[in-house]
Every structure is written in C-alpha cells, then in structure tokens.
C-alpha cells in the first residue's frame, strides 16, 4: 500500500529526531511514557516500531483533529496551520508537489481559509501505525460546503490523507502529509442504476 512506501521514504529524515525524543512524553505523564509493545490491529505486524503509548495515539489523533480547524479558519494568519508541521515538514498536493517551510505553509492556509466560522474539512477513519522512526497514518477527508451563501449545502469532494508523524520537542507534528483524491475507477452503468 501507499502508506508503506511513504514510510520507506521517510526513514532517513525522521530517525534522528524520533530517537532523540522518544523518551519524552509531551504531557509529562511519566507513568504512560514508557513504550510498550503493541499488537498489530491489522494482523500484519508492523515492520518495526519503537512502540506507541496510549498518549502517543491520543496526541497524534489530536494533531490530526486540529488540522481541520487550522486550515479552515486560517487562524493567526495561517501560523496555527504551519505550527502543526515539523520545522522541515511538508504538505504535498495530489500531484506530490510539496509546500515546505513555515511561511509557505502559513501562506497555504491563508489562501485556503473559508472564514473563522467555517467547517469544511471533515476528517475521519484515522488509522495510526507505529514505525521505527515515529508513526504513519491515514484518514478519510470529506469536504462539505455548508452555509455558503445561497448555495445549497453539498459535498465538494474528498479523498484521503497519507501522513508521516514525528515526535518533536513540542509534541507530535506532521513530517509529511499528502492528499489523494477519491477515485472509484470505472463503474458499470447497470450497477450505478441499481443502487
């Protein structure tokens, strides 16, 4: 799967940071910080892992939830969005073109904001897998246009994200996030009508 190839690409860049900070618990919960073996949920054991604690899972989930607010509201001139990425972190569009660096990421959020009260990026199905360097993950994204003037509420589009996370001194951050639009491939006409 794509997640696996993303993981391989990320190994070199993430290893140093992840090892340096793996002993730090972001919230200072000493009793939860010790890594523990994790049974693979999918039945296929992870290729290698340093172990994620429950708080690691929770903090990575929180990072991903914050993304939606940051990109939709463009809060603090886009800086909230930029702060979700590691210093060398990147957002990649569907073509793999990367936006990298704090100012470029903040500018991306400023371009994409729909207003301080908008809710557009609905992110669910968050799967997280530990790796030897940190963690990788993926989610479904559905983009909803709601309350946009006279337009009836509708679905703009959707797809999924493929993420690489890294634990920094400030907590878990995106090392890389790529958006992949949903593609269903050709669909037999008779089946489409039968639904």
């Amino acid at each position, binding site marked *: *799967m794509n997640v696996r190839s993303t993981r391989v690409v990320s190994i070199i860049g993430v290893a140093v940071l992840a090892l340096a900070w793996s002993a730090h618990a972001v*919230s200072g*919960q000493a*009793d*939860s910080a010790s890594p523990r073996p*994790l*049974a*693979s*949920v*999918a*039945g*296929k054991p992870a290729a290698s892992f340093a172990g994620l*604690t*429950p*708080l690691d*899972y*929770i903090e990575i989930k*929180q990072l991903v*939830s*914050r*993304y*939606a*607010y940051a990109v939709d509201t463009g809060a603090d001139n886009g800086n909230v969005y930029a702060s979700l990425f590691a210093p060398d972190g990147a957002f990649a569009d569907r073509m793999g073109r990367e936006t990298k660096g704090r100012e470029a990421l903040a500018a991306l959020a400023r371009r994409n904001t*729909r*207003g*301080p*009260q*908008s*809710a557009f*990026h*609905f*992110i*669910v*199905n968050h*799967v*997280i897998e530990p790796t030897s360097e940190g963690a990788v993950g993926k989610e*479904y994204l*559905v*983009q*909803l*246009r*709601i*309350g*946009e003037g006279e337009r*009836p*509420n*509708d*679905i703009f*589009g*959707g*797809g999924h994200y493929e993420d690489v996370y890294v634990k920094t001194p400030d907590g878990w951050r995106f090392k890389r996030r790529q958006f*992949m*639009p*949903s*593609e*269903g*491939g050709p*669909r037999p006409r008779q*089946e*489409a009508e039968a639904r």
Partner: protein
Amino acid sequence: MRIAIAIAALSVLVVGFSGTSAQQPTSPTPVLTALDYLEIEQLVYRYGYALDTGADNGSGYADLYADDATFTGTNQGPSGRTYQGRERLAALARGGKRGPNFMSHWVTNVVIEPAPGGAIGKTYVGIFDIGNGGNGAKSRVDHGGLYNDVYVKTPQGWRFKSRSFFESTSGAPVQPPPAMMAPPRALSASPGPQSPNPESRIPNPGRLTAEDYIEIQQLVARYPYALDQNPDEGLSYANLFTPDAVFRQPRTEGRQNLATMASRAPHGAKYTRHFLANHVIEATTDGAVGKQYLVAVDIGESGQPSSIFLGGHYEDVYAKTPEGWRFNTRTFIASATGTEAK
C-alpha cells in the same frame, strides 16, 4: 500506576453492565485498558479502507474478522442477510466501485463498551459517493446508518466477532437494534460506594491522562445516539450533561429542559443524523474544553436523495464528576464563510 488504578475502578463498574447481544453466558467481562479502546477504534477505522479499496482481493477485509465471525446487512432483502467465513466475507469487498484511492465508508461516533467475552460497540456510517478526482459535481451521500459490533481479542489483536448494518430510518421507533449501551461511566474516576453528589467536581491538575481523553471521547461519541435515537424521552441525552449544564442555541439549562429539547428533535431507533469529526480536547485547570465539527445529514429514505441539513462546530466545556466526565456547556456554531466574527 494510574492505569492500574483505572483498571481497578473499571472492574467494579463493569459488573453493572449487561449486554443484550448474543454472548456465551459464562464468558467473563474483561477489563478494557486505554490501549484496548484505542486498538478497537483502530480496527473500526480500518474497516473503511479494507472495504473501499478491496485490498488483497478482499482478504484485507476478511482479516478484520475473527474466525466464524459474521457480517449482517439488515437492509438486504426482507429479513436481512448474514455472511460468515473468510471467503464469503472477502467476497463482500470485491467488485463494484472500488480502488486503492476510493473513499466511501465514513465511520464516526465510535462508542465502545466492555462486554462478556470482549467488547461491544456501535458507530455511525455515512456511505459517500465522491466524484472522481475530487470533482464535487457528482459527490453525494449514497446512504448511511448504524453499525452494531461485537469485538473479540484474538492472538492477532482485536477483531470483529459480528458486525451488523442498520440503514438509517427516521420516524416512529421500531425494533431496537442489539448491543444497547449502558450510560457513560467513569473510566478513571472511582465511583465510590455511596451515591455521589453529582454537583461535585473532581479537580484536574491542568493535564489529562489517557483515560481522561478516552472517557471524554466516549462522552462525545454518545451524544449523537442520545439525540438521534433518544430511546427514553431525552433521559440518556440529559444525563450526558452536568445538572447545571447549559446548551446553546437555543439556550437550554438543566437536565429536564435538555431532555425536553432532545425529545422535540426528530428521532427513531435506527435514525442517524449527527455525524461528528475532528474532536479536539484540551486540559484546563478545572477540567477540559473541546470542540468538534458536526454535519447533520438527512439520509434519504425509500430511495430519496440524501441532503445536508446543517453543519458547523460545537464548543464544549467538560467537567469531571463522580459519575465521570460530562458536558458542562455545549455551544453549537453554524458554519458560515466570510470574515465576520462569530
């Protein structure tokens, strides 16, 4: 160890739980750790990918089930249809509109409970048809509803023992689905032997444990069920709040008024309308605050198209009481574009 304390508290609490789903009466009810909750949640989230991509010719989907496990589509045929065995399950994830980047099964509002032999759970599912290439022109909600699950811990990890899909239907209550849930309970707070004062607060040292996060997530995940299915004239809904809680808008204060408000909203035993996403939780010095996105989907019934009723986000204040975490305030803010302040 805080987790050990939580386990001790939980083992007392689970005695009071009674599941209505089919279970061997002799199976002991396990204690679920924070990691169990998270791993079951991961299993639930993998479901969409396995089904929508059809990975490994459907084997990726069958891998999510334990041996002898079943999937039941209660909407298939006049009395539903049950699939059992690896090959029949794998066949469910073949053919049709699938692909490595196809995203259709949108699962949220995951509620998990310990139960004899493992755990039970329920989730909302919105089944989307997203246009190719993110082109919004043809995107729509195809249909949706509710999954009722039984989970079992195997040597390979948590797996589905059974999963049943119920199509969303509004209107008069019908036969309630199985796996009814107990009220939300404290995972990490000791209940104490005597009846607690619900007005009291357990102080919070400005940080949250893993158990606190999970309990708050479970509180929020229960909200849509209490509102959309409302099996008890709003009592389940009201009990998610502290006695002095305030909901806005319209401003509604106190459990009796909250129950009345919930009962005025459309509901039914298999009705799914409130889909939550993006749950952020932050510790405060006296509890926690949080927010989520909401989309209320009117799922089309009897072949009618689905539509999006409204959307926006909730802003919450949570309080840790002797009964567990509860909403102290919950404020809905409708989505709107533009630069005007809310």
